[in-house]
């Protein structure tokens, strides 16, 4: 019969082996599970379309176009001087979601408004050049947005979201 000292050492050595095997097994299981989770993420072809480049030169002053970005509609409005002025002259305290127009456009490029065309109420696509402020009007539940895409009336809680974008040249932008 083994001495108690040997028994204790054997227990420790045996336990170490079992712990080592189980840990290595756990690491292996995690490593094997990772690709199964990762494949759910957008694949390379979707990621490639994660940004959209838009040439602004064909858009006339006063015109709003809709482009698709990441499957969502994006309104690009080439604003007239009147539209810019009415957007800039609003008192922020009047706005349900206060935000200055200058915070919603690029510096020196305030004739260009780029907003995601999804109503912040329940997700319908608002209609351009409609509504009391000549901005957008959402036909689903009557939300009214101004020429800066900010919510003015109706159930929508927030302004139309501004997507990440930047000017790649004077007349072109890259969204996303």
């Amino acid at each position, binding site marked *: 019969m083994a001495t108690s000292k040997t028994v204790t050492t054997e227990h420790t050595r*045996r336990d170490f*082996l*079992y712990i*080592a*095997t189980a840990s*290595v*097994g756990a*690491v*292996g299981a995690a*490593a094997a599970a990772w690709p199964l989770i990762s494949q759910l993420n957008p694949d*390379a*072809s979707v990621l*490639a*379309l994660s940004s959209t*480049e838009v040439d602004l030169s064909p858009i006339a002053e006063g015109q709003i176009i809709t482009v698709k970005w990441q499957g969502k509609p994006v309104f690009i409005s080439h604003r007239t001087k009147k539209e810019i002025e009415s957007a800039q002259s609003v008192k922020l305290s009047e706005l349900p979601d206060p935000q200055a127009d200058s915070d919603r456009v690029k510096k020196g490029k305030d004739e260009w408004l780029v907003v995601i065309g999804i109503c912040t109420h329940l997700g319908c696509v608002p209609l351009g050049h409609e509504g009391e402020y000549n901005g957008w009007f959402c036909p689903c539940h009557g939300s009214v947005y101004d020429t800066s895409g900010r919510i003015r009336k109706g159930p929508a809680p927030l302004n139309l979201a501004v997507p990440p974008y930047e000017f790649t040249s004077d007349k072109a932008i890259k969204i996303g």
Partner: protein
Amino acid sequence: MRKTALLIAAAALFGSVVSTQATEGHIVIQRQPWSFAGPFGTFDRAQLQRGYRIYKDVCSACHAMKLVSFRNLAQPGGPGFSEAQAKTVAADYKITDGPNDKGEMFERPGRVSDHFPSPDPNEQAARARFNGAYPPDLSVIAKARGVEAGLPRGLIDIITQYQEGGPDYLYALLTGYGKPPAGETIGDTQHWNRAFPGHRISMPPPLSDGQVEYTDGTPATVDQYARDVAAFLMWAAEPHLEARKRIGFQVMIFLIIFAGLAYYTKKKVWADLH
């Protein structure tokens, strides 16, 4: 003992059957050295770039490669173009897009997310252009062709990890043009090729010495072109080859260690039974 004798007898029987068939019109494809062969194989970036030149300047006139995207040129494990270079490559191509707001299809410069456009709008148009022959899409051609290994070579290939039958065949094909043997005739719409099954191929010899200029000093010969474009096509067919082998090595090491631990665990657990 009896069992072994039986197995050897069976193998000899089949071996003899194989060799009688092997000599009748059997095409032998030579195996070539490839940088991406073996467990630690990788693509030679410069070779992939040269191979891409060959595809672009020679093959793309007739062959599509629609499963490959311009962005693949810039991804790791490939020819190693930069994002900007891939964008330039894409922009040189005209891609049909649409319909526009008028309902018409239109052409625009390629974007990096586009796939390589096909030289013909569809298979029928291609066949009309080439007397009924269809230049196959080259996206997976390096995996769609192979080399018959027979026995026992086929079993040895499991150990040596031979997966380069496609590139070996493509190299043999591109360098295999020649005159038909004495007594055999061939029409003018076909060409005699040593490697092609049946030896009569509709594709005229696509490569000739000095056809494409290599700027890095690599010899501009048919032999080199064939190697480079075969390597490029292997990448086109298996863009994740390098990652696969790299992860494979990690997995094998892990499993061997794990097997060792599992073995000793088993031995330890079973030790107290006797």
